[in-house]
């Protein structure tokens, strides 16, 4: 790890000013991803601005009846918050499916949104990588790519976003609140992360110097039927090969509203809007869930080693929707 100067920010404004005046500075909060990246020289900041002591640790009810989650709320605190467990259970499940208790105790909501891919080629500086250094190539595209993207990838990058929390937030219509020198702005979570295109070095639409201050969840009654299904190589403490978040509002026999998002398959949490539209007004049954799954994956472009993710995603969507149709709960 290269050495750096360390400073504790005492307010959001203080943090933003420091990061704006020094473009080589980085924010640190929980550190669970950044400290690891520093160790392998993926990031070499001149200065670390510790934002972890700023007062952004509250979870408050919004006037609209949703929740405003401070950026520094830990993953553990969010997953265990009573209103989240009651009204957004798939968010609790998604967070609890990620990492381990130790990491969830350290990791913050803002940091979870900012974590970077675990693509092994990105992590190994002996390889070239367009995400690490633009225009150097992507050895993953032709290398061992079992864990890589099947949707929305480009020739420049086939890495996937590793977050579980973001996939749940994608179906919950979450909004990310950020602040920079220009003031405050809100970015819908599904527009917060980017597809790789020709600029895979940029994971998010955050501008330099901007800091995430919170995440807003709108009230969403159908979230109670939420399901988070995570499929991975071992039963716990592993990144998703494929994950699915679903929620359904069924009135009578017919689906009024449907939500489907995928994790582990793209450079960002992947909301399957077309599949959701297909399900509207349809009966909540196996054949419609299968057709919705086929629609969600129709543009999939598997690589040499991850063809299995296409069928796995389809079956996961069907299973998650089936459980959501029964009212949700443990998969």
């Amino acid at each position, binding site marked *: 790890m290269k050495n750096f100067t360390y400073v504790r920010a005492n307010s959001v404004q203080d943090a933003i000013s420091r990061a704006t005046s020094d473009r080589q500075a980085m924010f640190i909060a929980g550190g669970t991803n950044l*400290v690891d990246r520093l160790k392998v020289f993926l990031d070499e900041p001149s200065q*670390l601005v510790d934002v*972890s002591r700023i007062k952004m640790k509250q979870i408050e009810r919004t006037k609209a009846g949703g929740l405003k989650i401070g950026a520094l709320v830990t993953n553990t605190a969010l997953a265990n918050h009573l209103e989240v467990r*009651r009204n957004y259970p798939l968010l609790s499940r998604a967070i*609890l499916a990620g990492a381990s208790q130790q*990491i969830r105790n350290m990791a913050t909501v803002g940091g979870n949104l900012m974590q970077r891919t675990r693509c092994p080629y990105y992590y190994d500086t002996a390889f070239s990588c367009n995400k690490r250094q633009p225009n150097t190539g992507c050895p993953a595209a032709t290398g061992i790519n079992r864990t890589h993207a099947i949707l929305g990838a480009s020739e420049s990058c086939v890495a996937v976003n590793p977050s579980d929390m973001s996939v749940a937030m994608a179906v919950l219509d979450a909004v990310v609140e950020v602040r920079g020198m220009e003031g405050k702005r809100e970015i819908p979570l599904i527009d917060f992360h980017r597809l790789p295109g020709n600029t895979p070095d940029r994971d998010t639409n955050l501008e330099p110097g901007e800091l995430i201050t919170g995440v807003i969840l709108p009230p969403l009654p159908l979230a109670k039927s939420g399901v988070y299904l995570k499929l991975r190589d071992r039963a*716990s403490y592993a990144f998703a090969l494929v994950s699915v978040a679903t929620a359904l509002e069924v009135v009578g026999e017919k689906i009024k509203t449907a939500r489907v998002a995928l994790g582990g398959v793209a450079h960002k949490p992947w909301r399957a809007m077309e599949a959701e539209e297909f399900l509207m007004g349809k009966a909540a049954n196996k054949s419609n869930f299968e057709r919705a799954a086929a629609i969600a994956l129709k543009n999939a472009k598997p690589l040499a080693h991850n063809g299995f993710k296409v069928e796995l995603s389809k079956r996961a969507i069907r299973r998650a929707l089936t459980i959501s149709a029964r009212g949700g709960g443990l998969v």
Partner: protein
Amino acid sequence: MTEPEKKLSAKQRSRRNFLGQSLSAAGAAIAAPSLLNACQNKSVSASNALVEGETTIELKINGHINKLNIEPRVTLLDALRENLGLTGSKKGCDHGQCGACTVLIDGQRVYSCLTLAVMQEDREITTIEGLAAGDNLHPVQTAFLENDGFQCGYCTPGQICASVALLEEVKNGSVSYVTPDLTNPPSLASLSETEIKERLSGNLCRCSAYNGIVAAVQQAVGQTPPSPAASMENSHAG
């Protein structure tokens, strides 16, 4: 025994000094000097003047305030082991994947390899060295001993710190990925084997002493663990 060594507690002496003395006795000229330096460097930087790039911080560890001069890039794990001689917390992977470095910060279990020491001022840090009261072991330590919750022992400090926190988490009504009803968290009495395994998944044991570890936690939460023979049979049953 030299003057500085006399000041060390019995716990601090133990294996590192044994290693140093053994190497000296064997006259291992090449390896010994650097190893000995590492062994005896315990609080050198604390008494030295500030070196460029270093900063002075205070860490409260196991109830004691420690003042030290370190670079901001030093992880809490390295500060504990290399600067303060608290080598109970182990470095396994150094990437937050194995759990051997688990310590408690303000009662919460964390990976000390994934946080910087400079970030932990004003917080109560508890390491494996701080769990026992003198010669009286913490009940979780006793449970690991009585249930063979280890083989080589390298992951054990992390497993024990994680288990101590696990007990508090369950008492406080925390849920896990496998909790069937998120609004009805398990109690210590109802904590299932599946729950224990999920809640300890952040601590790997390469000897695979998992049956003993689960039994130790069962004893620590007040349940009756199955006999070792029974768990052996279970692990081999089809």
